[in-house]
């Protein structure tokens, strides 16, 4: 958000020494994961059970699916605050389709399509309406969740077709849940897209210098639009998983998820100003957050206190390298 911090970042990149590869972001995340894994295993005798570990993946996979898409959007210099609202809206549309007695594929399709449409609205506001993305999606967040409330009021939708529950609760083989398999597959696709295709380079280029990118022939507006649609679709998919797992729809579903998802992305080392970030980092951050919140859950720590831990984690993880860069990294 400020030019000052951007230049500080680029300076730090120039002065990087060989041993700095050891303190790569991903290495630190792996270390944090190992430490937390050890703490969890020590603190609770139930933690190392494969079925317990399977539960870890289920609770985090839904947010992580959205975080993968959000990572691309943030790398391109934009943000989407409305994902929680999209999940609620998609869940309501699935609930209505299911109540009308339509078959399972249509129920799932309606959820994903709702997410896709919501993404189009966000994309259009930013690329055609020229509204800054944080402002546009604060508006649509209220709008999407507001529509969910308008349709459902204080009611609940819970008539879903048989087989729907498998998506969020079922397992592919033993303790390997469908959600986990889906997340691993999507993460693989995201890694290839980000690190091995021209598309990934274009996303990063657009985030680090939109003007230069546009002048060198990248259709930056079309790219941004596509990324908003991708985030919306991912939120629709997350809504399918979440609704299936809970087995019911309320308009307050996924409240506050946008902040957890964005925390995951930033924790993964994606620069909020855009232009910097890796997908393995985001995947590791998702695993770390899943382990930490689950470990605290095992110790009967209430959810609201976990938010203190995730908030502190976010700040510490960002502040320590920043402090080292500023006070320990020699002359500026």
């Amino acid at each position, binding site marked *: 958000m400020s030019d000052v911090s951007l230049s500080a970042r680029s300076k730090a990149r120039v002065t990087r020494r060989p041993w700095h590869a050891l303190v790569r972001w991903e290495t630190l995340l792996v270390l944090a994961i190992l430490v937390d894994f050890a703490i969890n295993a020590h603190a609770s005798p139930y933690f190392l059970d494969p079925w317990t570990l399977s539960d870890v993946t289920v609770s985090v996979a839904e947010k992580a699916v959205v975080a993968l898409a959000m990572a691309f959007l943030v790398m391109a210099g934009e943000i989407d605050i409305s994902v929680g609202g999209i999940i609620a809206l998609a869940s309501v549309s699935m609930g209505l389709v299911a109540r009308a007695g339509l078959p399972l594929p249509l129920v799932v399709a309606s959820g994903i399509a709702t997410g896709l449409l919501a993404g189009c609205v966000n994309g259009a506001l930013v690329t055609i309406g020229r509204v800054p993305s944080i402002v546009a999606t604060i508006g649509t967040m209220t709008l999407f*969740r*507001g529509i969910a409330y308008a349709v459902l009021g204080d009611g609940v939708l819970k008539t879903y077709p048989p087989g729907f529950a498998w998506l969020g609760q079922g397992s592919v083989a033993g303790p390997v849940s469908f959600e986990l398999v889906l997340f691993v597959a999507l993460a693989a696709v995201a890694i290839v897209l980000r690190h091995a295709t021209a598309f990934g380079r274009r996303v990063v280029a657009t985030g680090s210098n939109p*003007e230069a990118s546009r002048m060198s022939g990248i259709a930056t507006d079309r790219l941004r639009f596509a990324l908003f649609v991708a985030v919306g679709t991912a939120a629709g998919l997350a809504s399918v998983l979440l609704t299936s797992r809970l087995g019911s729809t309320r308009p307050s579903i996924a409240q506050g998820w946008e902040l957890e998802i964005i925390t995951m992305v*930033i924790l993964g080392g994606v620069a909020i100003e855009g232009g910097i970030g890796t997908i393995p980092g985001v995947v590791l951050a998702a695993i770390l957050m899943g382990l930490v919140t689950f470990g605290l859950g095992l110790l009967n720590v209430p959810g609201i206190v976990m938010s203190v831990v995730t*908030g502190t984690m976010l*700040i510490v993880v960002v502040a320590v390298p920043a402090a080292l860069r500023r006070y320990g990294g020699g002359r500026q």
Partner: protein
Amino acid sequence: MPESFLRLLRTREAGLLGLNLLLLAAIAPFFPAFLRPGSLAGLLDDTALLILLALGEMLVLLTRGVDLSIAANLAFTGMVVALLDQYHPGLGLAPVLILSVLMGAALGAVNGLLVWRLRIPSIVVTLGTLSIYRGAVYLASGGRWVNSNQMSPQFLAFVRLQLGGVSMLSWIAIACAVLVALFLRRSVRGRDLYAAGNNPSAALYAGIDVGVMQFSAFLIAGAIAGLCGYLWVSRYAVAYTDVASGFELQVIAACVIGGVSISGGVGSVAGVVLGALFLGIIKNALPLVGVSPFFQMAVSGVVITGAVLINARGTQASALRILERRPA
């Protein structure tokens, strides 16, 4: 008509004022009671907290930052002063007021220091402190509620004090708006704040410490949020963990509708007050018009999205440009 008056008519603030009056005029024929002085005073009382928080948020937005933690700051400070009052009801009001402002300022200073000294983007910092402060409310209260019967009479009476037909809460909002306006228009620091957000590099060369300006903005925003913590808890006569949850986004919406630029350096107190009143009028008129409470959020969403879209149109330069202009 003098030239300067015509120029005044073309400003965004004049447009917003017109929009607000139009809204009132549209409601008036159907519900004349809405325009009674008593109802308008009630409207101001309902919107005062939004105005106060939006004034603080504007300062942060002016320096190219954003503060997502103000509602959590409000909840945390509100809970702490409510607990103070519950366990020491004999202390009177002064310690409560002083503590709320100081504690809010301290919480704001945490944000400011991280942004200033470590140069972490403000959205990251306040996303983190938002979770921390909100969790701290739970830690401070143990998840309990502090209800009106546990609050001392003077704790509850202060915001409801009527002076000239208008509540003390409204007077505080008015006084704060005047103070912030004077600070921004008449003091060197205030002008520096605009400069730091408008063009940080140029401000640096002009001898303005951009980091200090960012810190000051967070400090003031925090102090206002802390004061609002007491005012909110007293106004609604209850303190619990989820007080004002998500309110920060409404506050930012009020700022943006009021013409504050999210990319810094642009915005006025008059615009922010009118933007907050715009949201306040809609919120107060919807139940009157017979819109079900479940539709209110959707309508607010349409209004906020529409308003930011129109705002973006208003600030857009010529459509036929090759290079984007840097945001002013």
